């Protein structure tokens, strides 16, 4: 199944890598540069899964997850947090905001893909 993924990350390198990893896998990848941009993209897109970074300008990952969960059309879309952060405190914050899963960078392609397939069914 070709999944539609929205990946939100302010680092171009990270967006490139996610894009490469997931398009290789046959996924349809959409990219956004920060939370604000991600919300704009969501106006025109119903992704199967959203991947987001935490530390971003304008609107960070927590704010983005909050906003996504408040929107009717995206309330149940799985959100994977992909970040270098690993503290339990931040994880709890993300989970409370409504994150589905947490993957620590650098990511292994197979693990990311497995996680995506699992949360998206």
């Amino acid at each position, binding site marked *: 199944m070709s999944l*539609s993924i*929205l990946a939100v990350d*302010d*680092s*171009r*390198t*990270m967006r*490139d*890598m996610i894009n*490469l*990893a997931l398009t*290789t896998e046959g996924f*349809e990848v*959409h*990219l*956004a*540069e920060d939370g604000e941009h991600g919300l*704009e*993209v969501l106006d*025109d*897109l*119903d992704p199967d899964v959203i991947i987001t970074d935490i*530390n*971003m*300008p304008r609107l960070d990952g927590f704010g983005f997850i909050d906003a996504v969960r408040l929107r009717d*059309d995206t*309330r*149940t*879309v*799985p*959100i*994977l947090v992909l*970040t*270098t952060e*690993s503290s*339990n405190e931040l*994880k709890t914050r993300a*989970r409370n905001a*409504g*994150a*589905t*899963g*947490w993957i*620590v*960078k*650098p*990511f*292994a*392609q*197979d*693990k990311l*893909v*497995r*996680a995506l*397939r*699992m*949360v*998206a*069914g």
Partner: protein
Amino acid sequence: MSDPMQEIMASFFVECEELHESLVDALQSMADGEGDVETINVAFRAVHSIKGGAGAFGLDALVDFSHQFETVMDACRSGTLAVDDRLNELFLRCSDMLSDLIRCSRDGEAIDEATAEGLIAELATFAPQEEEAPAEEIEFQPMTLSLDDLGAPGDAPDLPPLDLPPLEDLGIAPPDEDTAPAAGGIKVVFAPDRELYESGNEPLFLIKALADLGDCRTSVALDAPTDADGLSTLGGRLTWTIEIDTEAQPSAVHEIFEFVDGLCKLQVEVLEGTTEAAAPLPDLAPPADTPAPAPAPVAEAPKPAPAPAAAPAAAPAPAKPANGEKAAKAATSAKASPTVRVDLERIERLVNLVGELVINQAMLSQSIAEENIPPNSPVTNGLDEFMQLTRNIQESVMMIRAQPVKSLFQRMSRIVRESSAAVGKSVKLVTDGETTEIDKTAIERLADPLTHMIRNAVDHGLEDAATRVERGKSEQGEIRLKAYHKSGRVLIEVSDDGGGINREKVKAKAIQNGLIPEDVTLTDTEIDQLLFLPGFSTANEVSNLSGRGVGMDVVKTQITSLGGRVTIESTPGVGTTFAISLPLTLAVLDGMVVTVASETLVIPLNAIVETLTLAVDDLKPVAAGQSVLCVRDQFVPVFDLGVELGYRDVAPVQEGTIALLLSPEEGVLVALLVDTIEDQRQVVIKGMQESYGRVPGVAAATILGDGQIALILDANDLVQNATGEDLVIKQKKVS
């Protein structure tokens, strides 16, 4: 660059440079006391992004350093650590180190580990104590993204441990502890809480993922709702029991349930033998070797709590009728990024092609002119538009190559920091005009000469603190770096507020070094120019700093090779300014096509102040073979271009001879005699240095509209050769 990972890595280093630029910006404004909350956030994110990318490529040194760097900055932004001057200063030094590490990682050079470790240790003294390193080390273990590394789910033990809250907390055996193969299969008891649904997880998907491990026997128990509210959610009411026929280890199951850890009751048990039937639900003994406390029995789990209306229903995926359409729309909107990255080679190719286009257009114009086609005919009108378009295309292409000098200036702030520390002076760098754009190649090639000029200014230009105070100046010296546009060129000035050039000392040194004879009389400008002579050094002892075997003569050569010029302005006691003047672009210039002794030559238009048609008696001879021209009551030395270039011995001065008034950077007017002026047009610069080396007076060559090759003259060099001849002869006499 066919390997996509190589490409991403290359673009990572480009991104690193940009991130480092914003880091330096942020740190600098913090140091200047202009920073606010967002400033430290910007700095933090820059380092954080560098760390993230570096981790992906296994650049350990970069990861380790940026990790410690970001940890301290994180403490600052969360307010647990106050930013003071000492910390700002450390941050700036760390940013320098970070820049080095990025460069070394990119170029595969050896890393200055001692300095890096020293800084890490210094940072550690600020770092919050509870942040302990060992756990992090595993996390940042390099894991290169490999395209063919698609392991089966059972490969999980090869991966670094998942980063989760300790499983013991949840009464579950950590994956590491069971190493024995689960020969008899695995039994999983799973009861999702309401929060699991709210987090976007779906129990059915998790169970489906379990099915990937092997054949499953699944049963589900539903607690009867106790009241009407209980019907609105399945949270906490469903309990699945899944028995999997699998060789996989329990860790594989834990991995599947990683994200819902804490959002459900989960029991994973290795079955001893396949014959053993599914145990009844309450029989939930933890694996024998786990020291952890037994989990709460699942039977107790269902909460009678009413489900708020906001809780999403268990239906996993809402219908998405417009998905395809929306996705197509998004594909265009999401990919619209404000910048694109282009390989420099492609731009070079475009620049070259545009060059050919300009030549081609010139040739076409010439052919049409020769056909005597009347003006305002469709052909000439079309040609006019074509010329206009060509010019627009060319300007646009040149703009692609242009970049602000900011990155260059930022590098200089580091040079100031390092060199002032080396000589023990307090120096402040003030920059101006950072957004001024010049050709990318020029930016790269200016780094060396500017570095040397700045070191010189710090070392020789500025006085030591005591002398400064004595002279009524502030203790801290100031170096000003300024870029601006002026009459079609870019000027970059390096000024200091030091003692000015000690011309007596310079002259004495030049005499001592045998560069000039003792009895020569030189103007201030001429003395200043001595600094550019090879083998000149004013410092009594060559210092470590500026005297690295590179003299100002090399600086001048480097600038000249860019089509630029360097001039000096110095006032004793007030300071010195070195000004670099560069052409806007390195590929095309507006030139005047002239002929001299039947040779066609191009003179850059921006060097020409005025053109004059002379009468025979306008020239006043002052010495053998030398004359001057009287222009509006000012006497201007005259040189014949043919003679200067060696095309002829004597200038055939006649009625109607044309003089070009040139103004080299020093502000002195010079008249250059030519035979005729052919045209004024844009010419494409074709470098000659690679084939012929540097030819005095000649900057490059070009191809004219008729296909003829013409030399482009370096007006300034030419004039200096002509006017500076005395100096050269004096040098020769001495040596």
